[in-house]
């Protein structure tokens, strides 16, 4: 056996639906939670389109029977993954996961460690920081429709990232996390537990990628993001799974008083990707910005569900989701601003914009409001349209050929969201990813221009 074929880890691959296998050593209380979660997963019904939370969604794609849990990773594969795991140039720390195994970790600086920052794997955190872990791990209910899949995640999650930023610590450079799906019908259960204390500041970017193009796979992730009082948390998701992957991601953000949380989700890959974002504003002066950009083509379906939950008075939230749709792609936006009783002086905004580039693309928008307090300012808007002929004409009069002009207009449309991030390095990175997807798509735009 050559070194390249040595297995880095070897686990019996079993179908997801066969239930809880033997995983690595975890504390008994966690194991109990997992058993309960599995029962919950089994007892909850499979979603149907009649469920309001799954309206318009292609629920037929949620057949989990082909997908396997566990598997083997060879040294050669590991090397390939590490080579391809390039994102940002400078980071404060980095973790790379293949399936559910942590295969490499660039630790944070000693200085940060000294100031109390904890950056470690989830399974270590449940032993070493059990109190924090138990307080925040999946503490928010999966309210947006995927309770069944959140239970599945909880039952099968075996690794992930734990990041704790103590009071007053600001981490300037981003923390970077990679999740790779490796092999046919492979599955992953990514998890990020991010807890910030008072006045802390951190930026995290997660990359979701596949080793093999075109092979089916399944990802089911949960993130718990906790912004403590006055903290500033920025979370970026760069989703670029292979085009046959079915992915579900459930993120919940808790924003304490005077804290601000910003999230940006970029969706480029997968066959079906559902992204649930719950943002709970629990303290006065809290602010949450929810951003998303999707470039959908072929048969892709992006299904975004959001809840801006204003629990406390004097809170603000602002959502901007933009979709560009080509070929037979579909997008769904189901968003809700909820202002709980007594959450006065809420200022909430929600906007979804769809740019349709082909006659078979379909955009579904369900922007919703539930307002139970009266002293509020809430607005939402949804638009669906196509490239403005005048804009196109203007660019053509400047000698720019139609396909290039179209590309520029679409890029400009999506870029507005990316620029809101106020983090030039990450914005630039996301911008490049969008450009790459365009490059792949150019054939179609040319065809249509004729």
């Amino acid at each position, binding site marked *: 056996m050559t070194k390249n074929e040595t297995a880095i880890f070897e686990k019996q691959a079993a179908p997801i639906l066969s239930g809880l296998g033997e995983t690595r050593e975890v504390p008994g209380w966690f194991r109990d939670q997992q058993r309960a979660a599995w029962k919950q997963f089994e007892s909850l019904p499979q979603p149907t389109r009649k*469920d309001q939370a799954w309206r318009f969604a292609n629920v037929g794609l949620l057949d989990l029977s082909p997908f396997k849990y566990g598997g083997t990773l060879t040294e050669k594969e590991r090397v390939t993954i590490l080579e391809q795991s390039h994102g940002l140039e400078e980071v404060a720390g980095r973790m790379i996961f293949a399936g559910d195994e942590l295969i490499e970790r660039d630790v944070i600086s000693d200085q940060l460690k000294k100031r109390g920052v904890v950056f470690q794997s989830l399974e270590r955190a449940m032993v070493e920081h059990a109190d924090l872990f138990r307080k925040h791990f999946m503490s928010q209910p999966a309210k947006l429709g995927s309770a069944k899949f959140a239970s599945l995640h909880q039952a099968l999650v075996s690794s992930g990232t734990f990041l704790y930023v103590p009071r007053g610590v600001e981490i300037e450079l981003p923390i970077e996390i990679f999740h790779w799906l490796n092999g046919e019908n492979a599955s992953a259960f990514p998890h990020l537990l991010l807890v910030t204390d008072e006045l802390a500041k951190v930026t995290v970017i997660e990359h979701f990628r596949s080793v093999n193009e075109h092979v089916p796979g399944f990802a089911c992730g949960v993130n718990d993001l906790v912004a403590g009082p006055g903290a500033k948390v920025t979370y970026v998701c760069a989703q670029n799974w292979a085009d046959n992957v079915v992915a579900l991601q459930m993120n919940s953000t808790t924003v304490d008083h005077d804290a601000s949380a910003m999230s940006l989700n970029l969706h480029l890959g997968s066959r079906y990707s559902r992204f649930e974002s719950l943002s709970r504003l629990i303290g006065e002066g809290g602010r949450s910005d929810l951003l998303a950009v999707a470039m959908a083509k072929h048969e892709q379906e992006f299904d975004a569900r959001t809840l801006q939950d204003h629990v406390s008075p004097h809170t603000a939230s602002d959502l901007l989701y933009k979709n560009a749709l080509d070929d037979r792609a579909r997008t769904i936006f189901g968003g809700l601003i909820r202002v709980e009783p*007594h959450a006065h002086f809420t200022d909430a905004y929600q906007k979804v914009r769809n740019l349709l580039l082909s*006659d078979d*693309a379909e955009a579904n928008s369900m922007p919703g*409001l539930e307002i139970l*307090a*009266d002293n509020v300012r809430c607005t939402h808007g949804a*638009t*669906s349209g196509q490239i403005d002929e005048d804009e196109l004409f203007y660019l053509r009069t400047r000698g720019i050929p139609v396909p290039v002009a179209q590309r520029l207009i679409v890029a400009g449309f999506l870029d507005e969201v990316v620029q809101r991030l106020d983090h030039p390095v990450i914005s630039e990175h996301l911008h490049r990813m969008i450009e790459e997807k365009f490059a792949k798509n150019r054939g179609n735009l040319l065809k249509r221009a004729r």
Partner: protein
Amino acid sequence: MKTETSAVDIDRNKGDFFYPEAHVRDAGAGLSERTVHYISDVKEDPDWVREFRLRGLKTFLEKPLPTHWASKDLEAIDFDKIRYYLSPGTEAKRSWDEVPDDIKRTFERLGIPEQERKFLAGVEAQFDSEAVYSNIKKAVGEQGVIFVGSTEGLKNYPEIFRKWFGKVIPIADNKFSALNSAVFSGGSFIYVPPGVKVKHPLQAYFRINAENFGQFERTLIIADEGSEVTYMEGCTAPKFNTPTLHSAVVELVALKGAKIQYITVQNWASNVFNLVTKRGLAQENAEVKWIDCNIGSRLTMKYPSVIMKGRKARGEVLSIALANDGQHQDTGAKMIHAADETTSNIISKSISIGKGRATYRGLVHVPKHLKNCKNNTECDALLINATSRTDTYPAITVRGTGNAVQHEASVSQVSTDQIFYMQQRGLTEAQAMSLSVNGFVNDLVRQFPMEYSVELKRLIELEMEGSVG
């Protein structure tokens, strides 16, 4: 402005009275095949109508309540306690003098006959299950306009009405359209011949007078090519101790180039369940416009729809909802674009007072390969008290390029600066609030026929009483 000029008096207190029942025909409480046969026998339905009713009953029993998205309050309806058919057992009268005195008194208190003399082209008044009075101005009748009750329409003009009856809203559209199909009685059947423009509005007035009673009127309006008609309906019921059910089906057919305007001022007592299905079909160049004001009822679920089936068809819904304590106005609109160059417009304004809840539920659908379709939706909600609630649930599907759809909604409170300014000028807080609310709906109300806008303003003032201070 004096209230006598109003088309329909919607002062809630004015409707809150009732007369002793003297029904000759009574289908009893509960719903079964026997009930349906009883209604069919009384009405001497043709066989196909009887079969239609039985199919409706079957579908109604099979379908579940839509509680996965709708208010759980629907479960409070006890279908076994409801009386499905009540009538005095007489034909509708053509002359006001022939109407029995007690019923006449009811409608006179509500101001119906005077209104007819003033400006209506025709009027029909329904008391529980049957029309008690129906008249159409001679000049309008001579133009070939048919304005009759549903029973008479199906019996005497099957060649006109059967073609469209149950076609715009099929039996199985929803549980309550199925229920209506099984036990429908009353409502208006209107046919406007090609090119005829009915100058004055046709009107129907609905009244529930008996406790535990369900009113299930059915209205079908066909505007033939190039014709125009405006229809207005108003409704009241006294407040009984047990809830009452009103579940109508209204179908509108606007053939090529026709225009139909349908105006509703709903002021049921605050324990009426008002579950109504309303849909219009607009052929080429035709226009269907719903003006929908919901002031009364305990729970209203009503989403007037337009299917734009022909090129350049237009659909419009203007909606005002006012939800006070104990009320849930679950209203909205549906716009189904099914041809090129179709345009639709939805403007909805709601006001929630006290513990009231106003919900906007909308659907805009632009399917594949259509060109130059446009939709504009605007929903504005105003919240008066800290306990008031408002929701907005639109669903918009757009396929393909070449169409433009936009939706906007806002929720706000009456501006304290405005109130302060008006108080400074000597208005009380309540007066200022009322003025402010009227200003909020003003641009919409201005589009209504004058008689209605005056009445609505007055009604809003009434509802605002005691909401502040």
